[in-house]
Structures are given as C-alpha cells and as structure tokens.
C-alpha cells in the first residue's frame, strides 16, 4: 500500500477545514476539531504504552522480574479515588506525593535556573580597556536601570505613600513603562516566526498539492 496520495488529500482537507474557522465556526471545522481531539487522545494512549509504560514498567516487571513494579499501578489507581467520597483522602495522599515532588524539584532548579541570570547581571558601570564609555552607557547603564526599576514594580508590601513610598511609586511606574517596551519588542520579534508557520502551510498547499496537478505553480518561486 502506498499511502502518499491519501496522506496528501487528507492533509489538504484537514488544513482547509482548520482555516475555515477564520471565517467562522462551522459544521466542518467542528467535525475536524472533534477528530483532532480524538486523534490526540488515541495518540496519547498509544504513546503512553509504546514509549513509556512498555519500556519502563512492563518490560522490567515481566522480563527482568522486578516484582515491585506491580505496586506502581496500585499507587496510580489511588488518583481515581477522587470520585469516591469515603476514600478521597487516599487520592490526596498520592497527590501530596506529587505536590512534594513539584516543590522539591523547584528547590533543585533554583540555582541552575537563576544563578547564571544573577551573575550575568553584574555589568560594570565604568569604562575599561576593552569597552568604551559610549557602550557602557548605551548597554550596561540602561540594562541595570531597567532591571532595577522593573524589579521595583514587583514590590507589593510597601505602600506608595510617604517619602520613600513616592520614590518607589516613581521607579515602579518607570518599570512598568520599560515592561511595555519589552512586551512590544517580544511581540514584534514573534511576528516573523508566526508568519513562517503560515508561509510553510501555504507552500505545502501550493507546491505539494496544487503543484502536483499544475506544474506551472511548482516552477514559480523555486
């Protein structure tokens, strides 16, 4: 069986069905929305078995005779007790295990995640042999001012009253403005990446689909 042509047509219909949502939600897009959710659910179940449980649980338990793996589904089953009024506390017990893990994992990640960000913020504020004053002001001074004012925006327990409070009110307003500049920059920086995705889809529709039947299209833009 050579599925190529079926794959092509299925992909084209699915793509157009999704794009029809841009006009408005309609019976076809609704159908494909459900198909998509169904395929994801089926795929999730399948890879849970083929890529995870089979190799990490079933094989060790059955082929390597590591009998203690039998307890994994028992503990996993406790989650389902959420639907029982009497035994719900056992579900909480296993959830507690996961909450504890989430907290402990965060403790581990703290320094690997944040200490490079801390020491890379140590920017010299004076010129040196390799870096001139122009660059120090244009880069490092601006960097430090933005970092500090933005952080000042995120102080919640100090009232913006009194002499010190008014200073904080000013810096946090400045911080908010810098935040907006940053958000604008992030927005602008993402436009190209998002357009690329659509351009990729249009290329597929033009070259792989239409180009298959209309060679003229295939030769354009190549």
């Amino acid at each position, binding site marked *: 069986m050579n599925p190529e042509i079926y794959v092509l047509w299925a992909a084209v219909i*699915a793509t157009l069905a*999704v794009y029809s949502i841009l006009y408005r939600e309609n019976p076809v897009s609704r159908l494909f929305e459900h198909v998509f959710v169904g395929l994801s659910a*089926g*795929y999730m179940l399948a890879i849970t078995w083929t890529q995870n449980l089979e190799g990490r649980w079933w094989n060790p338990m059955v082929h390597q005779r590591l009998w203690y793996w039998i307890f994994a589904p028992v503990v996993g089953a406790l989650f389902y007790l959420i639907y029982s009024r009497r035994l719900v506390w056992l579900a909480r017990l296993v959830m*507690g295990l996961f909450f*504890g893990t989430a907290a402990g994992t965060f403790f581990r990640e703290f320094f690997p995640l944040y200490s490079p960000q801390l020491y890379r913020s140590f920017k010299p504020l004076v010129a040196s042999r390799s870096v001139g004053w122009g660059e120090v002001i*244009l880069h490092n001074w601006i960097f430090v001012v933005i970092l500090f004012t933005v952080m000042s925006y995120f102080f919640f327990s100090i009232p913006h009253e009194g002499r010190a409070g008014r200073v904080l009110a000013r810096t946090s307003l400045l911080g908010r403005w810098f935040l907006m500049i940053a958000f*604008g920059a992030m927005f602008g920086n993402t436009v190209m990446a998002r357009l690329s995705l659509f351009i990729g889809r249009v290329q597929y529709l033009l070259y792989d689909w239409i180009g298959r039947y209309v060679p003229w299209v295939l030769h354009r833009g190549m």
Partner: protein
Amino acid sequence: MLLLYALHRLLGPRGRRWLIALVTFVAGLFYGLEYFYPAKGNPSANFLTKWIEPVSIMFSVIGFFTVGLGVYSLCHVHGRNVARRRPGWHNSLAFFLSMIAMLVFAVWEHYLHLPEPPPAVLPWPKGVYEVLFNGLFAPLQAATFSLLAFYIASAAYRAFRIRSAEAALMMGAAFIVMLGQVPVGMWLTSAIPASGPTAFFRLEKLGEWVMNWLNTPAQRGITFGIAVGAMAMSLRVWLSLERGTFFSEQA
C-alpha cells in the same frame, strides 16, 4: 493494599492530615536534600544521588497511570452526547472513531517493527497509520499553529493604538524590532554606513539593541520576581502551610 486498608480503618481525620503532610514533606525533602547536601567527586554525588533517577522514573510511571482520568472525562462527555443523541452527537461519534483508530493503528505500527528506512511497499496497517498521523494529526496541528499568523496580525492592528503612553511605547518597540528583521527594514536605513558611530541607527542594529538591552533586563526583572514567588509557593506547599480550599484538608 492491606496497608492502605489498615491506614484507612485506623487513622482519624487528624491522623490522615498528618500523614498527607508527612508524605508531601518527605517527597520534597528527598529532591531538595540531594541538591543541597554536600557532594563530592566528579561528577559530584552524595548518598542520595543514586536514587534520583529510579525515584524519578517511578514517579513518572505512576503519573502515566493517570492517563485514564483524562480519557475517562472525554468519554464521559462525548459518550453522553452520543447516547442521548444530543445536537452535534455525530461529532462525538467522530471523536470516538478517531480515538480508537489512532490507538489501534499506532500500537499496531509499533509492533510491526519495520526496518529503517522502511520498505517501498508498506504493510497496510502502517499505511493507515501514515494517513492518520501525517495526513490528519500532523496537518491539523500545523494548521492550527499557523492560525497564529492571522491572529497576531489582527491583534497588532487593534492593540497598537496610541491611546496611552504604555500602548505607544509597546508599539514603538514592536515597530523597530519588526522592521529590523526583514529586508524592507534594512533597505529603509541602508543609506546609513554599516560601520562608524551612526551605524547604531540602522534598523537591524537598533532592533538587535532593543532585544538585547531593553528586552533582556525587563524579562530578567520579571524572572527574579517569579523565582521568588515560586520559591515561596513551593515552601508553603512543602511544609503544608497553605490554607484555602484545596489545602484545608477536611479528610
């Protein structure tokens, strides 16, 4: 199993709450202590290091058994739609058909153990899987993702109005960065020499400067706040200090 039953019979509400807090604490302590307890050697290790991998695998395996919860919820909602012939029930039926088809053929394909590269003529289950995966699943995903191109355009059009200082700042930064990335922008300022003191004002340089020296520190400022917020939340959960709906254990 017996142990769980015994616990269920023996413990009163206070005992249960205490046990849950203990389990949470021990799980967190294990991961935290392994990181902070003095470690030696290269790669460095302490008495807990060798347990990290098996315990993590164990937890992830346990987590995988929760997959049924989501599927149960889906089947519950869509099953009722089909059973009661609610409006749009055929969509729910399509949901069941595509779920079962994907499950069956994805597992089947796995056990075909096809060689790499695959043979020129594919066995039919693999062919069906190809249609399901590359013909439907992947394109649906890619097409949905690419909707963002439209949404980002219309969001930009609506949001970037000089209504306030904040919106104007956002718009200005977005303009510079957007123009700095495409040939049109470079072409606009191509009259400015590429080196020398004025080169800074070429749009591609200006865009890079905005990203590196205005965007990075602001993001970092946010990041530190988040780090501390997450740290506090972790501590409260770990020590069962949290009160409020889910955490006030009235077991």
